[in-house]
């Protein structure tokens, strides 16, 4: 490792706008060397634009950023040798085979597949049976793994993965995160973006992003814990009628479906949780939900995200 400092990425007041939209709106944060750092947010949050600035593909309108101690606007050739990048849509050459793709990306960096094989072996071994297959004919999960190999083959010091799990099924997603854990163990700094809130828990620290702004930067557990008010799960037989009835409860602050339960917060956060629960139970029993079950729950990152994101965008 040639970086002297323990900060891998420093972002300071970065701004980037396109036409009338502000894609990145005054973002500042640091990422430490060796972290597995996640940017969590839906489409349009600005994650891809931010990544492109950090890998020297775009110039920001304002603000600074350094990656591995080098300025992203002025020291681009130095940076490009050290950075691994996997853009969204796993940009591979569909008409080249798995092996040909890998060799090409290795050669572009003056590396060879053989020399760096130990790094990519655990991933590439899964692809090896398909090495002569055209990349265009691979399934989403396989493309994802190949794109990761291609980004790693030159042994970068930091890896930027832009939505590597989007459009890929749950199993492949899990396997991919297991791969990332192994890479992190080897000391590589990894920066990932994802729209899936549950993947936030697999990162060391995360930044929640929405419409160009940061909603919070911290370890996932701490962000979840910062929810700040009592949270309850509510479940009964008939889901939809339960949802409607709970929304009509005059003390309801937020009521959202979460899998097979509802997440409920009360407007009166000063009240003791037991009291909130019992009053709600009474109300719902009166409405005919005799079997309702209400328990206090630990908030998840998704709850915190939704609490912080405010109103979804206006339509026009």
């Amino acid at each position, binding site marked *: 490792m040639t970086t002297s400092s323990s900060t891998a990425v420093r972002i300071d007041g970065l701004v980037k706008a396109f036409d009338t939209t502000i894609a990145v709106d005054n973002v500042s944060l640091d990422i430490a060397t060796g972290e597995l750092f996640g940017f969590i947010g839906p489409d349009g949050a600005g994650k891809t634009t931010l990544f*492109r600035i950090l*890998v*020297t*593909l*775009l*110039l920001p309108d304002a603000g600074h950023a350094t990656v591995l101690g080098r300025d992203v606007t002025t020291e*681009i*050739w130095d940076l*490009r*040798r050290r*950075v691994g*990048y996997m*853009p*969204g*849509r796993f*940009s*591979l*050459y*569909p008409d080249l085979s798995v092996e040909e793709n890998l060799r090409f*990306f290795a050669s*572009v*960096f*003056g590396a060879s597949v053989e020399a760096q094989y130990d790094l990519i072996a655990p991933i590439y071994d899964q692809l090896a049976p398909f090495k002569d297959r055209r990349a265009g004919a691979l399934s989403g999960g396989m493309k994802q793994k190949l794109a990761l190999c*291609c980004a790693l083959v030159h042994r970068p010091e930091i890896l930027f993965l832009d939505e590597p799990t989007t459009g890929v099924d749950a199993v492949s997603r899990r396997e991919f995160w297991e791969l990332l854990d192994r890479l992190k163990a080897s000391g590589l700094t990894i920066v990932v973006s994802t729209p899936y809130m549950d993947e936030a828990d697999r990162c060391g620290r995360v930044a929640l992003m929405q419409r160009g702004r940061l909603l919070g930067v911290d370890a996932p557990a701490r962000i979840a814990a910062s929810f700040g008010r009592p949270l309850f799960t509510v479940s009964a037989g008939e889901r939809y009628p339960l949802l409607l009835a709970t929304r009509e409860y005059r003390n309801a602050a937020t009521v959202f479906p979460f899998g097979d339960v509802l997440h409920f917060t009360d407007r009166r956060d000063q009240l003791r949780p037991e009291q909130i629960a019992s009053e709600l139970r009474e109300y719902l029993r009166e409405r005919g939900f005799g079997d309702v079950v209400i328990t206090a729950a630990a908030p998840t990152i998704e709850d915190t995200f939704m609490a912080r994101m405010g109103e979804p965008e206006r339509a026009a």
Partner: protein
Amino acid sequence: MSAFAGLLRKEWLHILRDRRTLLVVIFMPILQVVLFGYAIRTDVSAIRLAIVDPSPDASTIELRSRFGATDAFRIVSVLPNAGTLDRLFASGAVQEAVVFDADFANRLARGLPARILIVADASEPNSGSAMESYALGVIQGYERDIAVKGGAVRIIPEARMRFNPTRASSNLFVPGLIAFVLTIISALMTAISLTREKETGTMEILLVSPLRPIQIIVGKVLAYLVIGFVSVLLVVAEARLIFAVPLRGSLLLLLAEGVLFILTSLSLGILISSRTSSQRVAMIGALAGTMLPTILLSGFIFPIESMPWPLRFISNIVPAKWFVLIARGIMLKGVGLEYLWPQTLILFAMTIVLVAAATRSFRVRLA
């Protein structure tokens, strides 16, 4: 509204709201009408004429002034003998020559038939025959006028088509065809290839790598350069073997000029692709920016001399025009750099400018 009517309306709205395509679709035909209307002329004007008059006298001077009086001709030199004619034809300074026999005036005065030799540069399409008939027209006009006045003269014109004695049309088209083929391969294919990388997203990765723009460009186009080269060889071989098109000059020079022209077209292709991110638009841009001018304004099919001056002016910045001149010169006239150096220099300068512009325009970042 019925389903079908709804579909019609939708398509109409798509067209109206796509301003750029709309502009092209409406203004392209207007432009084309102008171009085609003025470019497609089979009549020639301002033919550069040389007159060789070894023994000038009243009749030859009368004829000379008639040649000078029409718009069809522009007398560029009057010579006492035919010695320098070859050079003038070779350099393209002269397109047609009227050569009076040494005893033309004498024979005419004595009532004997007198000869005039008409030599036309037939390496230009259409022009050869047209030029010949114009000259004949002037001569016949003179004969008629004398007859009307009561005299009688007989002039025997003898016509010779230089460089293309059989007036085989394949001889005329092949040089231009080479330019055409090279333009397609170099400009069109390059533009498409570069924008395809952008569309699939792989361009992002290339840009983020340590590869310099020049490496990416050269890496992309070298393959097409080789293909273009092979293509040229094939076209020339075909022309020689099947159509017996002459190659009177140096093959090496032709290939060298070909490479120069390929570089020019490649740079154009890169310039076009750097402004677009979709293959479709790149294709249209390449077609409009390279193929159309090549077909219409390079002198490939339609003679440039008969176009109005704005088009003649524009044709000067069409690289294909210069290459066509060079190719014709080498293949049909058999001349070399000693005559073609101006055209080569111009092509060279254009190439340098375009390569520099292409390299500059190929951005190191996405934006």
